[in-house]
């Protein structure tokens, strides 16, 4: 993969990482968006769509409320698509999922570290903030956004490095049935996480009946296709 493409993916992953919490939360951070766009950059929309759908299911396991800690699947999906693209036909989904899940975990840890850095910056500026100095207020805020951009870039870069390593060391190391097992594990875990996450949201109230009706309808459509 060329350096230009890697830089393009890095820029996209940074925007995606920034969108998750800081600016502007328009949901390009959703794997369903991050993956296909990364795939389009690589000229491989199909792989982008598949991994976007796969990580979107993992995303359903998360409710991003308040100070909760959660994995970050946006830049992770970009890295996953990068890993799977070069390995299409050999490892595909499984390799992408492995790279993506590790990157997602690192992304989650980096969010916690960023919040701690922001907390220190706010404490340092506490006197000026309590005095109502608007310039300090804006500076603290802008610095937080800049820190998040750097964080997102670092996480994406780590993911892309991991993708490169996976391509070099894992692609070809597994026999065909091993590859199939990896793909089954990736898809199975995503479907289980998506179903469990959705059912936690739905609860046991009337929503459960709507969910069941949806499953029946979706199954009928899938069967008829």
């Amino acid at each position: 993969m060329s350096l230009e493409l890697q830089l393009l993916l890095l820029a996209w992953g940074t925007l995606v990482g920034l969108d998750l919490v800081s600016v502007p939360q328009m949901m390009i951070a959703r794997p369903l968006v991050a993956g296909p766009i990364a795939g389009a950059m690589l000229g491989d929309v199909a792989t982008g769509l598949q991994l976007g759908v796969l990580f979107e299911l993992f995303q359903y396991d998360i409710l991003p409320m308040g100070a909760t800690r959660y994995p970050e699947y946006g830049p992770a999906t970009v890295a996953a698509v990068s890993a799977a693209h070069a390995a299409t036909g050999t490892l595909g989904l499984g390799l992408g999922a492995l790279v993506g899940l590790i990157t997602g975990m690192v992304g989650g840890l980096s969010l916690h570290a960023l919040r701690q850095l922001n907390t220190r910056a706010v404490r340092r500026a506490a006197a000026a903030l309590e005095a109502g100095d608007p310039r300090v207020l804006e500076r603290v805020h802008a610095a937080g956004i800049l820190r998040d951009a750097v964080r997102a870039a670092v996480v994406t870069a780590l993911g892309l490095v991991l993708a490169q390593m996976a391509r070099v060391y894992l692609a070809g190391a597994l026999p065909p049935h091993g590859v199939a097992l990896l793909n089954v594990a990736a898809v199975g875990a995503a479907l289980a996480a998506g179903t469990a996450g959705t059912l936690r949201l739905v609860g046991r109230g009337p929503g459960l009946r709507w969910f069941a009706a949806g499953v029946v309808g979706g199954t009928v459509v899938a069967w008829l296709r």
Partner: protein
Amino acid sequence: MSSPPTRARPRLVRSLLRLFTVQGSWNYERMQGIGIGVAEEALLRDLRTEGGADGVAYRAAVARGARFFNAHPYLCGLAVGAAARAEHDGVPPEQVERLRTALCGPLGSLGDRLVWAGWLPFTSGLALIGVALGLGLPAILGFVVIYNLGHVALRWWALRAGWTYGARVAQALREPLLQRATALSGPAMALVIGAALPLVAQYLSSAFFGWARVALAGVVAGGFALLWWLRARLTGLRLGLALLAIAALAGWLWP
């Protein structure tokens, strides 16, 4: 009480743009407080001429605006508009503080139900169905456009409602449209995601044949059971990593 500023709309627009960055400096001490302060500052500039030449009233209001706050990011505008309007109306500082504190819980809870557990999974589920049925990139584009129509409209409504009602902002939360949307979003989300799951399962497993399909059914059932019963400890991420590690080991050992 001071009269409302004459050039409110441009300032509301500036405040709205700043609200898109409201969580940019999220931290464990003031949470969204700094971002809220930045967004509110755009609406407080008229106060610079009040309270003396050094803008005592303005600075005091800016300081209050940047204190602890945490709610749903899309509905923060309600608190920003209401607090700024209350400052303009000369509401006592303690009452402005109480207003901000009182809004955290309801705005957080409402936004979580309406957006995180409603509008977002609903629109994303529709996009999943679209992709599974072969629509490809247009389904993704449709998701981004439709989701953000609701997103931006909600942010703008929240800011305007806060600015309109001021300290009486609780009235805005009783709007019939908002109540109806909150009531409908849960069932709609459940129906759409329910329909999306079998279609997505078919889409992702289209390349699997024979034993792989049986294995997939087993992994989904077992994984779901583990996630359900160990929900306090096991996450989708951990399950995924564990299953991939087991699969890689089994595949490597398989003769």
